[in-house]
């Protein structure tokens, strides 16, 4: 590093006229601590200019530098024979067979969505699409994982409908099907909605390209939209807590999306990659040109020199500081082979976009910024990208959480009224109810590859020209993570895996989006550490390595953090599209079999929240080895052709899982007749969210085969009843009670609930 440092000091760097003086306050405003600033002084060997300070601020922000998460994240398993690209690139890449590779990643846009839900969510989708197509993969599916407060205030409904429109409009316009995701409502997310978007892209293995600035003398070109003043310091903004006045004052830090330009950029980028005219390409996402250029230089071990006066801008008089830190959307940085710049321009012109040379790759390891002839920033690239200090913080569980977990829940095991009414209440709870109101606003069938649409356990897209398909899901129950982070995180991974096996897919790898509060607070850091450890254990047990993801800290408003929400985006491979298994019952007379064990663990359940607004108790325990055996058993049953339908049990317990199997998509429902003998309180038998359970249906003559496979895997299994006719009721008898309901009443509660809430006047708020 000493040679790099000396190079940095040899170049004459000129502060710009009008730049503010570097003071401790200014350093603090840039989110840099005293010790971090001292490190900057050592790296630079002099006082940084205002422009340089801005660059460090962005690159060493939590968002770009992962300073409070990196050490723990290094504990996660990241390798497997099928992993082609692990963490550190724009997206992870795995081998999915038949010569195809799958790029996939999840990313958050929580802070912008809290302030401007439509644009915040839309640009979140835009950013994740670019992360995928910059790997050389064509985006083929989107999933979205959303969290909001309870839908009873106007403010929350505004955020919810704005986010859904934003996610929908952007993906619809670009033409990428949305195949699933999840949404949860709980007052724990009231001030801080969670908006995570995941994208999957397919390519032939040899089409993979990475984001690195290789080849000294190659040209750096900016392609796509022009740079404006929007989103300046977005990365730093994303690394702060929100306060009541964040609303108005932060709006200019939110970017504005243009999906039409994105679509052109997508096509142009894939054409550029195919042309061989470029050696690297990266989205200008968080921290704009700064991070894309610095990271590309850092990965290649090279330097870059960029002239700000050549960057096409939308508004006059932008300073290098502003251009460097703008997060204007739909822009990319490409490294063009020397002499092939015109080829790049020709391709971009076809798509009615601009490509402009703004600098070149150098061999001196410096991130150098010019304004015409004048050097305004000169920073060693490697310390900028890799030198961000990382911290391990103190982590202590909050006493409040310990108390909640230890709370005596026995009074809640006594039914407060008619269990059949409670059943309908739960079916209509927005956390359980059909999310049709959302996904009917998303194009789910464009690209003619969607074999399983949103609404089931996992979305499935087939790979044209092969017999294969990819399944994907996102999962996390934040309440369970809140009550016991390590268990909650394991449950998130286990549920994701169960969702995939239910459609017939082998769980293969994950991307994660870790949404937490302020990590400087010991109880938040505790949640984070425990959740990472839980994820590590589960991913190791299931052989689903982590290939990348995103950390979003500071999800707090006025000092109150969200539930810790480590969203798991999991992908799996289906070898034969003919074996894709539906969630719902298909035929009258089929047997209904429950795999796994019922328990009386009602802690953290939707039952408690929907009936008493209580979030308490210990989450259900999870046995990773038993989960793995269950996954393998179900995959074997499906592969051998025994299974007609399969569905995971989660929110709302076994009763709601059976209801979903019975209702299907509402067009051809079936009745069901089920009896459980387990000696449990009725509430637990019906609504507890015990882990490791899957409901399957099969032809009556296949029941024995299924029970035999379950036994081979040591998975508890019992025939609990049978599928009845479309005119028959839903009937579930348990040891100490029963539920009976007409399908029409259930359909009304389940399918109409969210749209009814969204169309009703709000009880409070704006």
């Amino acid at each position, binding site marked *: 590093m000493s040679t790099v440092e000396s190079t940095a000091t040899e170049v004459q760097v000129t502060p710009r006229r009008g730049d503010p003086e570097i003071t401790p306050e200014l350093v603090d405003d840039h989110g840099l601590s005293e010790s971090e600033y001292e490190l900057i002084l050592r790296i630079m060997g002099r006082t940084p200019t205002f422009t340089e300070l801005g660059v460090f601020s962005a690159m060493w922000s939590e968002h770009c530098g992962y300073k409070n998460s990196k050490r723990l994240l290094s504990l996660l398993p990241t390798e497997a024979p099928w992993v082609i690209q692990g963490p550190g690139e724009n997206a992870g890449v795995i081998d999915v067979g038949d010569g195809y590779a799958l790029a996939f990643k999840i990313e958050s846009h929580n802070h912008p969505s809290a302030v401007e839900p439509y644009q915040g969510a839309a640009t979140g989708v835009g950013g994740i699409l670019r992360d995928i197509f910059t790997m050389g993969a064509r985006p083929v599916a989107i999933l979205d994982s959303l969290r909001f407060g309870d839908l009873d205030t106007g403010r929350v409904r505004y955020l919810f409908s704005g986010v859904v*429109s934003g996610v929908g409009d952007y993906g*619809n316009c670009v033409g990428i099907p949305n195949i699933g995701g999840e949404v949860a409502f709980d007052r724990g997310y009231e001030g801080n909605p969670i908006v995570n978007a995941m994208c999957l892209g397919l390519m032939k293995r040899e089409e993979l390209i990475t984001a690195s600035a290789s080849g000294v003398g190659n040209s750096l070109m900016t392609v796509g939209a022009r740079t404006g003043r929007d989103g300046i310091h977005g990365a730093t903004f994303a690394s702060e807590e929100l306060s009541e006045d964040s609303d108005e004052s932060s709006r200019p830090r939110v970017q504005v999306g243009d999906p039409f330009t994105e679509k052109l950029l997508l096509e142009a980028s894939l054409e550029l990659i195919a042309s061989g005219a470029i050696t690297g390409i990266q989205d200008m996402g968080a921290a704009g040109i700064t991070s894309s250029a610095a990271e590309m230089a850092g990965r290649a071990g090279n330097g870059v020199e960029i002239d700000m006066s050549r960057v096409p801008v939308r508004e006059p008089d932008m300073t290098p500081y502003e251009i460097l830190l703008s997060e204007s959307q739909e822009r990319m940085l490409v490294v063009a082979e020397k002499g092939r710049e015109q080829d790049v321009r020709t391709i971009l012109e076809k798509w009615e976009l601009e490509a402009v040379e703004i600098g070149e790759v150098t061999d001196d390891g410096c991130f150098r910024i010019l304004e015409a002839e004048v050097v305004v920033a000169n920073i060693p690239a490697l310390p900028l990208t890799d030198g961000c200090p990382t911290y391990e913080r103190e982590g202590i569980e909050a006493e409040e959480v310990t108390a909640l977990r230890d709370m005596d829940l026995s009074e809640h095991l006594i039914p407060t009224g008619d269990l059949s009414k409670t059943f309908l209440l739960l079916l209509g709870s927005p956390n359980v109810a059909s999310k049709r109101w959302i996904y009917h606003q998303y194009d789910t069938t464009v690209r003619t590859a969607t074999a399983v649409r949103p609404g089931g356990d996992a979305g499935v897209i087939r790979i044209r020209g092969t017999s294969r398909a990819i399944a994907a899901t996102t999962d996390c129950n934040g309440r369970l993570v809140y009550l016991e982070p390590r268990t909650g995180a394991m449950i998130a991974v286990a549920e994701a895996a169960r969702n995939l096996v239910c459609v017939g897919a082998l769980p293969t790898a994950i991307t994660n989006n870790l949404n937490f509060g302020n990590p400087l607070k010991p109880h938040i850091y505790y949640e984070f550490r425990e959740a990472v450890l839980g994820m590590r254990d589960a991913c190791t047990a299931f052989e689903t390595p982590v290939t990348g993801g995103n950390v979003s800290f500071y999800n707090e408003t006025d000092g109150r953090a969200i539930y810790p929400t480590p969203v798991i985006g999991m992908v799996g491979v289906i070898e034969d599209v003919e074996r894709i298994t539906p969630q719902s019952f298909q035929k009258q007379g089929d047997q209904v079999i429950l795999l796994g064990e019922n328990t009386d663990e009602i802690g953290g359940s939707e039952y408690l929240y929907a009936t008493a607004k209580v979030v308490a108790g210990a989450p259900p325990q999870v046995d990773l080895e038993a989960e793995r055996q269950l996954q393998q058993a179900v995959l074997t049953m499906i592969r051998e052709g025994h299974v007609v339908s399969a569905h995971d049990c989660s929110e709302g317990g076994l009763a709601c899982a059976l209801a979903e199997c019975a209702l299907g998509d509402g067009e051809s429902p079936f009745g069901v007749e089920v009896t459980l003998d387990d000696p449990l309180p009725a509430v637990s038998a019906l609504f507890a969210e015990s882990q490791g359970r899957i409901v399957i249906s099969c032809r009556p003559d296949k029941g024995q085969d299924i029970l035999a496979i379950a036994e081979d895997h040591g998975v508890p299994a019992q025939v609990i009843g049978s599928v009845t006719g479309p005119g028959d009721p839903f009937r579930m008898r348990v040891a100490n009670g029963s539920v009976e309901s007409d399908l029409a009443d259930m359909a009304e509660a389940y399918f109409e609930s969210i749209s009814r809430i969204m169309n009703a006047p709000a009880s409070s708020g704006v």
Partner: protein
Amino acid sequence: MKVAVVTFPGSNCDYDLYKAAQQVGADVDFVWHRERGLDEYDAVLLPGGFSYGDYLRAGAIARMSPVMEDVVTFAGRGGPVLGICNGFQILCEAGLLPGALIRNAGLSFESKDVLLRVEQPDTQFTSEYAEGQLLRVPIAHGEGNYEADAETLERVEAEGRVVFRYVDASGEVTAAANPNGSRNSIAGITNESGNVLGMMPHPERAMEAVLGSTDGIGVFTSLAASLSAVAS
């Protein structure tokens, strides 16, 4: 059968349409909106998507693309032209079809399967269907609410130019089965001479059982049959 799939900046169902035409044996080319000349083709297909981001108004900018002059000429000579979704919007904007497609009555994007009733099997695009046949086909649009003045509506109805209508499972026209508020539940119409069809639903997305429906195939087999009849 040689078929052109015309693509505009922002088209996103171009590839789906290409594959659908190929599935019925067509020799398919993409024709970029700035290219000229459609003489070598037997049929012209306008795909769905968001040409020019639907900015200004869906289809309003695309209809001024250079290739549209050729599409108008091609249609004028009686060549079959099929516009789906955004393609339908462009055909209306270009004046090849009457009426307009405005924002869905519910004001939000609607993406789901609908049921269509075949009203007019006597076209180059529907000859393989029976009159009254019900088709399950996806829709995905925000501006698919077919609107025309009373006189135009009366004329297209009287002339049997309504090809598809949104209906319920029993084949009845109902308000609940109309996903976007279209006048007379119209999902697809032809021009006067019947060689230009515009429709909001996506038959090209209903071509394979694994994707949920094969009911859209008839549109493409009908076209293939009519062209081979012309050729022989």
